[in-house]
């Protein structure tokens, strides 16, 4: 058996613990926490495909999340159809939107690209808030609960396994990007686009592909999130805060690594859940504390450890290996 790197072991261990949790505990709060950690991890992994592996840093991924959330919610609330159908429609729309954004990324770099992605998400937010006849406007869309797999009315345990499958899928796609030809080409585009182009890599096509795949994954997770939470509201699903969150998990965990988004999500989501549970009864505005910590941690990480926790762990392993040799 070939030797697995420590970060792969960590991922396997994390997914195994998640898979075993329902066998040990039935506590709804704990199961909910595990589901959210996996779901936010999967979303950050989706962001990581474009932002980490391809170096196309977007601050508007909430656009795709919102498209997915609305597609699923409207399909089940307005048309009484299966949210899976809504998920498929959302993915199709996000692929088109992702291709458009991807086209922009070929013309714009760095801050210009980030700004254009923010603007794109903002436009969708305004449309969703104002187009009252279709989206119900700012009040949002409550998603009806209809038990069954086809209607995505599931219990906590079933949700956990469904989201676990999605999360493992997102992880596997990232591992593929680390080991495949396409992945190396993306790394080339990220590190030096001109050099990559000179080596005959179709840089434009690769960038658009990365963003389209990332958009489709984000949208699918958005659809599942809408069904899980049961309520979609435009000021949340299209918010900048959400876009930042996808990026934040990846950066804290380690941008451009397969484990990073899940590690970041584990830390940030647990911190959020803990602080919410502690402060929500006392003083509602205190829940903002975790966002202050977010902000400060983000500043510190990009400044002092831009390769995130997996980077720190990697240096630690290398140091230990040298110490033993």
């Amino acid at each position, binding site marked *: 058996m070939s030797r697995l790197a420590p970060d792969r072991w960590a991922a396997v261990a994390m997914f195994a613990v998640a898979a075993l949790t329902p066998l040990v505990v039935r506590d709804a709060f704990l199961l909910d926490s595990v589901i959210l950690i996996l779901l936010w991890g999967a979303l950050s992994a989706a962001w990581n495909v474009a932002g980490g592996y391809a*170096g196309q*840093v977007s*601050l508007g991924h909430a656009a795709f999340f919102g498209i997915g959330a609305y597609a699923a919610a409207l399909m089940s609330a307005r048309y009484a159809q299966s949210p899976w159908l809504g998920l498929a429609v959302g993915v199709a729309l996000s692929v088109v939107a992702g291709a458009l954004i991807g086209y*922009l990324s070929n*013309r*714009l*770099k*760095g*801050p*210009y690209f*980030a*700004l*254009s992605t*923010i*603007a*794109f998400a*903002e*436009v969708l937010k*305004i*449309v969703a808030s*104002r187009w009252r006849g279709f989206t119900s406007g700012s009040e949002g869309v409550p998603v009806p609960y209809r038990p069954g797999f086809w209607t995505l009315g599931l219990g906590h345990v079933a949700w956990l396994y469904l989201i676990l499958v999605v999360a493992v899928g997102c992880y596997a796609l990232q591992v593929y990007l680390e080991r495949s030809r396409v992945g190396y080409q993306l790394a080339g585009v990220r590190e030096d686009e001109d050099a990559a182009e000179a080596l005959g890599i179709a840089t434009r096509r690769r960038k658009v592909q990365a963003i389209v795949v990332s958009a489709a994954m984000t949208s699918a997770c958005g659809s599942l999130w809408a069904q899980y939470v049961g309520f979609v509201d435009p000021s949340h699903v299209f918010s*900048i*805060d959400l876009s*930042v969150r996808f*990026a934040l998990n990846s*950066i804290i965990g380690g941008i451009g690594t397969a484990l990073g988004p899940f590690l970041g999500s584990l830390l940030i989501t647990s911190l959020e859940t803990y602080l919410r549970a502690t402060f929500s009864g006392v003083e509602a*505005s*205190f829940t*903002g*504390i975790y*966002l*202050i910590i*977010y*902000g*400060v*941690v*983000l*500043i510190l990480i*990009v*400044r002092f450890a*831009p390769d995130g926790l997996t980077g720190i762990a990697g240096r630690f392993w290398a140091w230990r290996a040298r110490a033993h040799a």
Partner: protein
Amino acid sequence: MDPAARLGPAQIDVVAQLAVSTLLLGGIYALIAVGLTLIFGIMRVVNFAHGEFLMLGMYLAFFAFTLRGVDPYLVLIIAIPIFYLVGLFVYVLVMRGVIHASHNVQIFTTVGLSTALQNIALVMWTGDFRIIRPWESSVVLRAAGTAFNLAQVVAFAVAVALTVALMAFMKWTHTGRVMRATAQDRDAATLMGIDTDRVYRLTFAIGIACVGAAGVLVSPLYAAYPQAGLQFVTLAYVVVVLGGLGDMAGAMLGSLIVAAVEVGGSYIFGAAWKEVFYFLLFIGVLVFRPAGLLGQRGAETLGA
């Protein structure tokens, strides 16, 4: 029949009113945007936390008015030095370390700063909307068939005065020349003996002082709340990209265009849709003329 004669006096009023509203709004947007474009032009950093300093300015005016009864225009006198110092402090604490870092590091540093400041405001002052009504908000001026609020006129006048003063400072003072030299070529400026760290410190502090002053000026017109900066700053991005990132005269022009789109769009299609227009304008400019209306073509592909 002559078309001009068919337009009754009421319709001529509408056009004049729209024009005046555009001008008044544009002046305020210009002051917000000019700090952003200055920081970008010289430091090559898009300050994603710009709106949060505007929000802090609005809170400063709110608390000075409700706790001490100080009029926002008096607060302005102390707000400019206060925000200058805040800018210096934030530069030394946060920005200095990332000035030579990659775009992504800079983007996420200012995004982190924005998240932290927004939520410090939320925890300290709750999410309530804070509105002040000093006497000047209820004075209505009428001239040539238009009506506007005294607070709007003062905000416009002060904003334009500050913006013009800043442009004059950049053009004619030695420090201004040093700052422009640094913007043009960091390395060459360093070789000429320019202390670039001092230039960046000054730039950031001036930019923050501008937007803090803008926050105080808009406080009689808009409610203060932790996310109050967001609505203005997204708009300031539009203005700044329209005018060309780093171009101060362009920012003035961009402000007027955005204000015209907002005022015209609200009048024709209703206030609910106004933001859609300037974002569509924004995306249009990014696609077709990303260096801005006045900017040099190709600047955006350098990523800086």
